[in-house]
């Protein structure tokens, strides 16, 4: 059994909604509201959900790009929830992120060489000539080469830019990389190349991934375990195989059946879920999915379901799998 690299305990991130001249706090947007899971060493953990479900906020909070409102982040058996100064810098070196939009996640005035060597300089990895040589190694690692060294971001195609971003993330020799929708702005043929690259890099460098995405098919392709988020909460967590074969939570079922499969002979049976996700500033009571859920019963609007274990180590937050409910309905 692999050990846990990252452990998140009851993590919360609330944004205040301010208004008026004095900036009075009117309420809170609960972007992440009590999420716990662990990421094992060497795996790719997929975090899926629709826009506004809090998956990106969660990723950034884990990286300490934002400070959590409550809860703990444990990295490699060390609590990093509140580290600052040198401790934070050490943590930042070990964890890196690749953002969704390669077009805007680089300083337009920097050449690739300067982007990569600056990161190495700041983190005390390498200087001068050694840094340049390492930059070339990194470029070759991500499928670019020395000739790309002195070019500006705007001279690259989307796929190439994302490769540069990956090279930048790898330049601190991290163990853990958060991939925040890294392929969603790319064309499919480019996406396929990038996914292969990410898989190869993981094997070669022994990386652990947190892969954040709204694209279920990509997650199926890349990840080992998958967590499904809905309105700031984790509703299901299980091995990829089980999840795609037999989704448990009604939301996961709806999500999976909504993905259009590129094969006209496959017609996914399933209900098209009604309505749209409510605002995270004012989430529904009880189970947050209940207003859209086809199976909701009297308990759902009043009691908040917790993640519970069902058939061998799958976690789901739904009363349908509650033993009591199963007994009653037979």
């Amino acid at each position, binding site marked *: 059994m692999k050990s846990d690299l990252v452990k998140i305990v009851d993590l919360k991130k609330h944004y205040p909604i301010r208004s008026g001249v004095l900036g009075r706090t009117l309420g809170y947007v609960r972007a992440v509201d009590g999420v716990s899971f662990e990421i094992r060493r060497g795996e790719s953990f997929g975090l899926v959900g*629709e*826009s506004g479900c809090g998956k990106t906020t969660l990723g950034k909070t884990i990286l300490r790009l934002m400070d959590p409102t409550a809860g703990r982040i444990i990295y490699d058996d060390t609590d990093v929830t509140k580290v600052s100064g040198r401790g934070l810098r050490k943590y930042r070196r070990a964890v890196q992120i690749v953002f969704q939009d390669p077009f805007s996640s680089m300083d337009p005035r920097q050449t690739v060489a300067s982007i990569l060597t600056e990161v190495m300089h700041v983190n005390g990895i390498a200087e001068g000539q050694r840094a340049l040589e390492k930059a070339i190694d990194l470029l070759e690692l991500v499928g670019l080469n020395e000739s790309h060294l002195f070019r500006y971001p705007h001279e690259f*195609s*989307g*796929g190439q830019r994302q490769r540069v971003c990956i090279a930048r993330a790898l330049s601190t020799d991290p163990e853990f990389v958060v991939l925040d929708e890294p392929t969603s702005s790319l*064309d*499919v*043929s*480019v*996406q*396929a*190349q990038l*996914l*292969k690259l990410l898989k190869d890099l993981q094997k070669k460098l022994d990386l652990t991934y947190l892969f954040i995405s*709204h*694209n*279920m*098919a*990509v997650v*199926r*392709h890349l990840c080992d375990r998958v967590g499904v988020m809905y309105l700031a909460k984790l509703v299901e967590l299980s091995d990829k195989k089980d999840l*795609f074969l037999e989704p448990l939570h009604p939301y996961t079922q*709806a*999500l*999976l*059946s*909504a*993905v*259009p*499969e*590129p*094969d*006209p*002979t*496959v*017609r*996914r049976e399933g209900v*098209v*879920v*009604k309505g*749209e*996700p409510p605002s995270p500033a004012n989430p529904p009571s009880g189970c947050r999915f209940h207003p859209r859920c086809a199976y909701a019963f009297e308990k759902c609007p009043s009691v908040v379901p917790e993640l519970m274990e069902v058939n061998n180590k799958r976690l789901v937050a739904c009363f349908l799998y509650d033993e009591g409910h199963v007994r009653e309905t037979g």
Partner: protein
Amino acid sequence: MEEYVLSVQDLKTKFFTRHGVVNALDGVNLTIRKGEIMGVVGETGCGKSVLALSIMGLVKYPGKVVEGSVVFRGRDLTKLDPDEMRKIRGSGIAMVFQDPLTFLNPVFTIGDQLSEVFLFHAEMDRKVVEYRIAKAKESLAESTNDGQRDQLIEEINTLERAKEAPAKASSKEARKAAWYFSTEMMRLLEISDPERVAKFYPHELSGGMRQRIMIAMALALEPDLLIADEATTALDVTTQAQILQLLKELRSRINSAILIITHDLGIVAQTCERVAVMYAGKIVEFTQTRELFSNPKHPYTQGLLSSVPRMSGPEADLEWIPGSVPDMINLPSGCTFHPRCPFAQKLCEQEAPEMLGETSHLVRCHLYGKLQAGRQAYEK
């Protein structure tokens, strides 16, 4: 006998930029049948959006439709003057874009903007009569008094007769009628409580709701053709599924053809009946959706299909097309796909292939023409 709503012949659109001439559309032929859902699929920069804009006559400077024709209702749209084109755009062909917020006016309510579509384009005099009929029928359904019922039936009959030569309606009545039809349209798009939503401003609605409103505006005048250019790209999958479902249902109810322009092969597979694959400003394959996915002929289509991750079936490694989309100013010679094609021969560099094969499955590739013998030998 097949009936075409729209027939695009040899359409060429060029953009004259400071860096050179971009051949965004390089001789596109396309026919859309009455009431069908047709897909155009391709990657970024293949010209699929320019195709939509060229059909709509919305290509902006420095772009220009330089050759070819777009025949709609027996007229060539490329030769119409701007006023006539505007009329076609309202009631003949309608379009829905990726980002609805840029097409909705932030300072007017949804209901106002939808009403405007009716007031501006529809024959309001006639619509007012239809509105009165609808209202009378409503009261009829509620009424229990026999005398009143007879009166209402009489009124409806008079109004039905008046529909042929409607009297001039006052602008107040016209507004009322337009508002009524707007809410009806919203109901058709499964927007719950349309009377309330009609009073909202665009920013108060979710992305999916805005897109429904855009579709309502587009379908308000019952166009013969609806073009949806990446209309669901910005939406979440569950919302996308709702909208695509809706489009499929609406098509049969209002009997208009739908042209779906997308980069998503999944959307094409699940919603379209026929599909055209575009590459570098040309259609490279054109056939039934089922045929395309079960028997893709063009190497580009094959590459595209094997690079999409799937939700079902065995987890195969993804393949991809080497290289990247060509520079549209300096297109490769011969077949524009040859530098990336695994089967490319000398001939492919020298000569651009024509559309080949039967009309039910056209493909722009030498492997099905001059190089056929070689391909068959290879396949054996």
